[in-house]
């Protein structure tokens, strides 16, 4: 059992800047929670406060029901994997992994058993006598993970552990860490700025911005029901498109009309109840890139079409990204498969308006 609870946690630096502002997070036992957000959003500071590397200015952090605010890192029963691996360069892989165990005065046979177990899990058996400099990036990262797992801690903390690896290795290590989480059944807190990592690994994702928590939810809920425009644009790749406009109630129908009036359509019935109170208000319309296609037909969903000229085309094989400018906004369409589209030639795109999102223009909160 290892729950981690952050209650009204803030970090205020000496010069008065608030790096983390009133953060409340509840991490259940055996849960994999990802803290995600752009750089400077306070996610790493939050993790470092859990680790005890950063003092907690306000609020409290509980591990297993015990307040740990004033405990030094070594007494919190946590292990941390750093972005830059932080391996001890003068020690061999074996010594690196065993260091924490030696300091805890475990018997020699026990240390040996645990280090060998970890090495086997991580595929490091043949490298135990090497120094870190003789290892590749991926192997070094594995040693760093090994150093964490031998300690058998209550909570694992990861601080952007994959951001120094190349793309292919990153995908591989991603699945390895997920598998490790499943095998060890441990509570893990993982910090990243990469929303793909967050979406693929987390049981629960905490989206942060400017030191505050924006939303805590499952990956799917974050994607389908983002609380505000920031979360909507941050989660999903390519990001959601936004078009500024107004809701107009006319002859018993609710219309959406964009500012430059290039787009006007009757809002599908299912949104009416939520949007009726916003009529005659300015609004952000959010469209996921995959809901813009060249051809699409549906019995359930309502489709409208727009005509525009693509600025840029990125064929990726299994998908084709088409960029165009619409109403002074950059818009991207994520077309299925390999599609032949020509630059600078007018195309007709179909938008699935049953899958739209609406955000208030002022508060940027999601309406529906």
């Amino acid at each position, binding site marked *: 059992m290892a729950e981690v609870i952050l209650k009204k946690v803030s970090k205020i630096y000496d010069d008065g800047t608030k790096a983390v502002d009133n953060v409340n997070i509840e991490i259940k036992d055996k849960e994999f929670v990802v803290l995600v957000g752009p750089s400077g959003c306070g996610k790493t500071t939050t993790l470092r406060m859990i*680790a*005890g*590397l950063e003092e907690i200015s306000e609020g409290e952090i509980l591990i297993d029901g015990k307040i740990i605010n004033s405990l*030094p*890192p*070594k007494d919190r029963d*946590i*292990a*941390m994997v*750093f*972005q*830059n*691996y*932080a*391996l*001890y*360069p*003068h020690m061999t892989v074996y010594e690196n992994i065993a*260091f*924490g165990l030696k*300091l*805890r005065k475990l018997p020699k046979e026990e240390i040996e058993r645990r280090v060998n177990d970890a090495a086997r899990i991580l595929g490091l058996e043949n490298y135990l006598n090497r*120094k*870190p*400099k*003789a*290892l590749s*990036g991926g192997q*070094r990262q594995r040693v760093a993970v090994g*150093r964490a797992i031998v*300690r058998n801690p209550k909570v694992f903390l990861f601080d952007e552990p994959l951001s*120094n690896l190349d793309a292919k290795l990153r995908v591989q290590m991603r699945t390895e860490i997920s598998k490790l989480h499943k095998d060890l059944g441990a509570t893990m807190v993982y910090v990243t700025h990469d929303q793909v990592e967050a979406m693929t690994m987390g049981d629960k994702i905490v989206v942060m911005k400017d030191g505050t928590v924006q939303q805590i939810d499952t990956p799917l809920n974050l994607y389908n029901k983002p609380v505000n425009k920031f979360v909507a644009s941050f989660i999903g790749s390519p990001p959601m498109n936004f078009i500024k406009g107004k809701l107009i109630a006319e002859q018993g129908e609710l219309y959406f009309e964009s500012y430059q009036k290039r787009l006007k359509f009757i809002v599908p019935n299912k949104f009416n109840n939520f949007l009726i109170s916003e009529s005659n208000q300015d609004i952000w319309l959010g469209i996921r890139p995959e809901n813009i296609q060249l051809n699409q037909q549906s019995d359930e969903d309502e489709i409208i079409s727009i005509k525009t000229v693509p600025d840029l085309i990125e064929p990726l094989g299994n998908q084709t990204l088409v960029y165009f400018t619409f109403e002074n906004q950059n818009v991207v369409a994520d077309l299925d498969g390999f599609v032949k589209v020509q630059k600078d030639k007018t195309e007709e795109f179909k938008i699935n308006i049953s899958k739209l999102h609406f955000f208030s223009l002022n508060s940027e909160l999601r309406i529906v």
Partner: protein
Amino acid sequence: MKKLILHIILIFIAVITLIPFIWMISASFMFDGHASVFPPRFIPDQFTLIQYERLLERLSIARNFLNSLILSILVTFISLTFNSMAGYAFAKYKFKGKDKLFNLLISSMVIPAQVTMLPLFLMLKWMGFINTYMAIIIPGLANIFGIFLIRQYCISIPDSLIEAARIDGASDFLIYKKIILPLLTPVLATLAIFTFLGTWNDFLWPLIVMTDDSMYTLPVALANLMLEHTKDPELMMAGSVVTILPVIIVFLALQKYYMKGIMMGSVKE
């Protein structure tokens, strides 16, 4: 071709630099008067150890050698300990007035050593340490240049290493001992050479604070030798060899650690 010319030039310069040393060593193995001939001899016509025997007999040179050795080793070890602790603290710890204190230290480096000699002497006299080892050890406990050098090197050690060790359960002292000190090896070796050389070769300060023949360090004793035996170049050369030998040994032993790239592979920048 270019490389060849360069090598020839370098070898030439090296030989010129080495000639006095070679002559010193060979002259120390000659009988009286054999060194003062022209052209100078580089290989003794008759090999003898008599100069070294005389050195041991007529002077308390063994005692002086021991003085120098003990003092140099002690000062090197003690000052490396204090310098590395202070340098590490200045580089990695946060405490009030850290920058001000460090700037004060650095600015005091402009004061020439000669200026501080008299007050230092009076202080040591007041403490009753004149003509004891402590008179040389105490001023050498720590030195600002050493602190500065170690601090600069320490700054390049990533914070995450220290944090990782802290999470692994290491106390502050253990982090210093097990993580920081091994990583400082190159700079410690460099500083050890400087300190050992400085203490071993120091002439003025031991001359001031030591009053007995038996407490003299080698350079001071050798200077006395020169005064008494100006006509014995062979004996003087034997004394010089004894003086220089430990320094060369220390340098050769430590030079492989000299600024070696030990940090490689620890973290990815």
